[in-house]
């Protein structure tokens, strides 16, 4: 089991209680998560590991309000997100969650700054205010000089930095990263992990990161393992 780093206080930001997730494939039911319990404290950097198909991304999707559990409770900041309507859930995501994807999911037709601006379009900020936030976010990820570049002209590491800038530009409560270094070489991956660590340490961002890579999970405060829909604090045999 990896070293369990702790965060002062007992202020759980994310609570997952008795969650089950069943997918249907035709007449067949696939139980992905079963009676799962998890707490993530405010300011924590949690790594979620497990083999392919273990349900890591499914759990991340439930916590991020991208999907709903078949059974159980998911609450973030004391709010039960499994009960929100689609529209309220979308508004909740816009306000509280930043997503970092493995393949960045930048819009190729928009420049770096326009990509970062996207979540701000859902706010009431003026154009000038949006620009200010975008500049700050791109500066934070070290890309202040690449604002006008389009994704195709950026390296993988730079694209992921734009992805992170986009995730943090609204100053969300929670940062959810799905294999953020999965498509990067070791050096770029390290830079991204350092950036996430800095966001956690310096900005106090709560981060949940799904990863296959033990090297990446070592950067987190705590690692939990998912296997066959069950959660373990130590890597199962």
């Amino acid at each position, binding site marked *: 089991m990896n070293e369990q780093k702790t965060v002062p206080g007992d202020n759980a930001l994310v609570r997952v209680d008795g969650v089950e997730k069943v997918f249907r494939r035709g007449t067949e039911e696939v139980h992905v998560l079963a009676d799962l319990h998890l707490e993530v404290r405010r300011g924590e950097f949690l790594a979620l590991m497990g083999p392919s198909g273990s349900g890591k*991304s*499914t759990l991340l*999707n439930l916590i*991020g309000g*991208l*999907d709903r559990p078949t059974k159980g409770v998911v609450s973030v900041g004391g709010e039960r997100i499994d009960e929100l309507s*689609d*529209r309220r859930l*979308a*508004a*909740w*995501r*816009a*306000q509280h*969650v930043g*997503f970092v*994807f*493995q*393949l960045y*999911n930048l*819009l*190729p*037709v*928009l420049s770096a700054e*326009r990509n970062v601006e*996207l*979540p701000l*379009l*859902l706010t009431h900020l003026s*154009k000038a205010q949006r620009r200010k936030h975008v500049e700050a976010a791109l500066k934070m990820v070290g890309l202040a000089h690449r604002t006008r570049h389009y994704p195709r002209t950026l390296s993988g590491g730079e694209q992921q930095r734009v992805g992170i800038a*986009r995730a943090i530009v609204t100053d969300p409560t929670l940062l959810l990263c*799905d294999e953020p270094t999965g498509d990067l070489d070791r050096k770029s991956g390290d830079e991204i992990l350092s950036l996430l660590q800095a966001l956690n340490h310096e900005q106090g961002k709560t981060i949940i990161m799904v990863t296959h890579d033990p090297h990446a999970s070592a950067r987190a405060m705590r690692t939990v393992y998912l296997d066959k829909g069950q959660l373990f604090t130590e890597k199962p045999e």
Partner: protein
Amino acid sequence: MKFLSLVVGNLKRKKLRTLLTLLSIFVAFLLYGLLCAVKEAFTAGIAVAGADRLIVRHKVSLIMTLPVTYQARMESLPGVASAVSFTWFNGIYQNEPKNFFGSFPISHPEAFLAMFPEFLLPEDHKQAWLKTRNGAIVGRALVDRFKWKIGDRIPLVSPIWPNASDGAWDFEIVGIFEGAKKATDTSGFYFRYDYFDEGRKYGKGLVGWYSVQVKDPERAEEVAKAIDEEFANSPHETKAEPEGAFMQGFAQQIGDIGKILIGILSAVFFTILLVAGNTMAQSVRERTEELGALKAMGFSNELVLALVLAESCLIAAVGGLIGLGLAWLIAARGSPVPAMLPVFYLPSRAVLIGVALIFALGSVAGVLPALQAMRLRIADALRRQA
């Protein structure tokens, strides 16, 4: 407006595909505009037909003549205000068959001008016409076509009505009239019947048809019936009908122009609908992951629906408005075949319907892909790339 860069950006994704779709829509609306102008050319007479005017022609056919004496008999009937005769002269300018236009001897110039207030002739031109036996008044479109001016002498040859010398008829332009409405036909050439009747080789005392002004438009049908009864069982029986009905019947000799055009345009728009719909469907399919990412960021289902519809409407608006605009410009330059279609313009009503069609096309083409994007489950969309 803040989402405009996103909408425009998505259209730039596959430039060639967007350009080809734009061109298809452009051609469809150019065709729509030009066909509307053609339809207007065929039906303009109906639109401007006087509600208080009847056309009285030979019962058998328009090409058969009526006696000039009918005029006085009709004017003596109750309900008739005045009558003016017309004859199809078929004048050809400079002996060149393509230089053909509508030319008519008019029995009573003053009554004619009073009966057709849509022909705006200056008073001095009118007086000149009354004084000049071989004087002719010419519409603005015809004057512009041949670059004529007041005082020009115009030789016309008529294959139907030769003069005594079998040569050209000599006319002098003494007046130029404008149209009171856009749809008013100003391609006509009108001259005096007394000059014509005296000079023609044969057929004296005969006219082509009459325009009759009734005192009360509400009683037009009744007066028409009275006229036909007046000449029943004579060698020249008549058929009297309101001018609008006459024009409509005349236009329908070619066919129901409206139905023909609707048929053509329906086929064109259906094809374009498939082209635009396919473009949008492909575009949405190609960016499933991006749409998933947008929804993950907090873009609601309704907003995603609106963005895809906005894209579809934008592409339709750019292509459609350019096509419609070009059609308007072409029509504004005048008829490409003035002898056949003297009135040629794109009416405001057709422009408004065109704009509505553009947005209907954009909405209908985009609705299925937009619903598909709206219903997209985020987890499924993001899983596609994993």
